[in-house]
């Protein structure tokens, strides 16, 4: 670098700068996050659910996952432990005691909430997750590299990973039966539910319906629709007779989960200005110091 001329320096620096700014125009490509006004949702009325677990069976069948016969799901002893969706079961039902009438325990079906501003979509390194027009948040197995950052990001702790697979492990989570609904069918769990605890419809209608129910039966429900505002709103929503926190729902704010992270990220990379500015600044400092050194050493030469 000793015999570097000033013109060379400027020329190469300009080239490098151009290369970086050229990149910035391409960086708009990202995963889909469509928030259609007509996006669908599901409303679960936990006061209606009887904990028959038929939805667990239907879900596995619809997703071609291994399952035992439907009769085995009548076994209520599984309720002794609180369960979570895993890579082998995309939805599970948990049971909680009812303080008002002991004979009617509260059953809560758990699955992906299909957020309106999903953390997984924002976090995924390759954009394998996307929010579809019909409201479902789906995972693209052709992109996924198995980094599991979606699991770190998800506020509801939903995505599960096939840890026991050495090759092609999948991320497993409820996909809102995207394949069935695009063919005009109901989600498998909604279809099989014998007591119609799950209502499928546009999210807008469901919010209205939920508030209508609360208004009509103020003694039956607490005045809150879980999922209406949590982390910016979710496609799946719940009605309950008991505080949601006592039913193991996480305590979450109203801001979308990826909000702060995306603000920081886009601040650091605002049209690549900060990195390019830093590059230019350091280049300037380097050039000044180099010339100063040359000047100091003076007649002695390099």
């Amino acid at each position: 670098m000793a015999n570097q001329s000033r013109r060379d320096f400027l020329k190469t620096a300009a080239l490098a700068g151009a290369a970086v700014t050229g990149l910035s125009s391409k960086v708009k490509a990202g995963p889909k996050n469509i928030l259609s006004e007509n996006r669908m949702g599901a409303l679960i009325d936990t006061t209606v659910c009887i904990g028959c677990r038929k939805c667990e069976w239907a879900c596995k069948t619809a997703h071609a996952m291994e399952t035992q016969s439907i009769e085995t799901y009548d076994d209520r002893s599984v309720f002794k432990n609180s369960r979570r969706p895993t890579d082998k079961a995309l939805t599970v039902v948990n049971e909680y005691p009812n303080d008002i009438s002991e004979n009617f325990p509260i059953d809560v079906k758990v699955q992906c909430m299909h957020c309106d501003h999903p953390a997984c979509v924002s976090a995924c390194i390759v954009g394998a997750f996307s929010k579809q027009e019909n409201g479902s948040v789906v995972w693209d197995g052709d992109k996924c590299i198995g980094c599991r950052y979606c699991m770190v990001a998800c506020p509801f702790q939903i995505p599960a990973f096939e840890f026991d697979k050495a090759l092609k492990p999948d991320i497993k989570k409820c996909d809102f039966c995207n394949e069935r609904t695009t063919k005009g069918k109901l989600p498998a769990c909604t279809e099989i539910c014998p007591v119609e605890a799950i209502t499928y419809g546009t999210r807008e209608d469901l919010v209205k319906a939920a508030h209508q129910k609360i208004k009509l039966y103020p003694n039956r429900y607490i005045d809150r629709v879980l999922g209406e505002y949590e982390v910016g709103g979710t496609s799946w929503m719940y009605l309950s007779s008991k505080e949601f926190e006592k039913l193991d729902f996480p305590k979450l704010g109203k801001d979308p989960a990826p909000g702060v992270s995306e603000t920081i990220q886009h601040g650091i990379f605002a049209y690549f200005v900060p990195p390019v500015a830093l590059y230019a600044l350091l280049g300037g400092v380097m050039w000044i110091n180099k010339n100063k050194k040359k000047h100091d050493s003076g007649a002695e030469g390099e």
Partner: protein
Amino acid sequence: MDKFKPVPMKKKFFTPTVIVLSGLALNGLVFLLARFIWGIGAVTNLDNQHPWGIWIGLDVAAGVALAAGGFTTAAIGHIMHKDQYHSIIRPALLTALLGYTFVASSVMIDLGRYYYIWHPLIMWNGSSVLFEVGICVMIYLTVLYIEFLPVVTERFIGRVNLPGFVKRFNNPVDKILRILDRGLDKTMFIFIIAGVVLSCLHQSSLGTLMVIAGPKMHPLWQTPILPLLFLISAISVGLPMVIFESLITSRSFGLKPEMDILSDLGSMIGPLLGIYLAFKIGDVMIRKTFVYLMEFNTASIMFTIELLFGVIIPLRMFLSRQVLKSPVGLLIASFLVIFGVFINRMNNFLIAYTPPYEVHSYFPSVGEISVTVGFIALEILLFRLMVMIFPIVSVQQVSKPRTKYFVRGSAK
């Protein structure tokens, strides 16, 4: 000026320590093999509650931070043009090079579908912090290899000696090396500046990584200024790492430690740690998270250890002239900063991470620890091997110098 000159170290490779390290490396490789045959679940304690373990929390997060010596010395030596520090740039560069190589390897073994590691190159997600970290690390690793090329050309120009029938390529290879050398000489500044910019970007973004975990992360650590804290702590740990490694290398190869340079470097660390401490305390005060320090649990204990032993004590030590002048003092103070950053990254990625439906807490398995320890052992072994092959460590010149660059300089 040319009192110190980098030369390949001459000593036998195998010592008792080297043999122990080789054993550890081998042990790690065995568990690594098991991971590839039976999957991540078979070797690690990871599950759906704890998607990331020490392979990410320590190998990657702490590994990147501890390899920061590469860009901090490049900034001081090349960009600030402080020529007196040139003798420490090469060892720091090698540490960074090996460090980042192992970071990339750790990411790869932790990926469920490691054979798709190239996907982020063509499948972009601008809002993903991990995407930014991944791309920056990939480019920076390439930049590090380019920055190292002049060491390779210096070692082999005029000394290309291929064995057997490939002997006839001796001249062409030499010519290529010379062209490469000349080209690099003219363009190296682009890579040096790029290296510093890329480092600043991904060191900070590594902090942003856990922001999206939101309430799953303990409030003592979860703060929007995480990227700033990560950047300052990375810059602060760069020089202690260089000092620590320089002192160990000197001892290992029976050289006199370059105390005047190391003391000078040491005096820069105090202020950096001071800035970091100010931000850290400010953060705790403004977000009023000090209430969590009144509780007595893992989080509060780890936070206290991190801040007391990793920041406050070494800060006091680096401000003392006595410590700066003594090799042992410098060694201990530097080690404490390294320890502090190590614990900090572990706290951020593992201790602070408490998912809402946690049945049991995470502790690394024997396999995970073996692989991590094996990687570190392998890294040390490779460092030793590299300084014996390439001119990296500077020694005081007594005999007549022979390197080609010396012809230009004044004979002293």
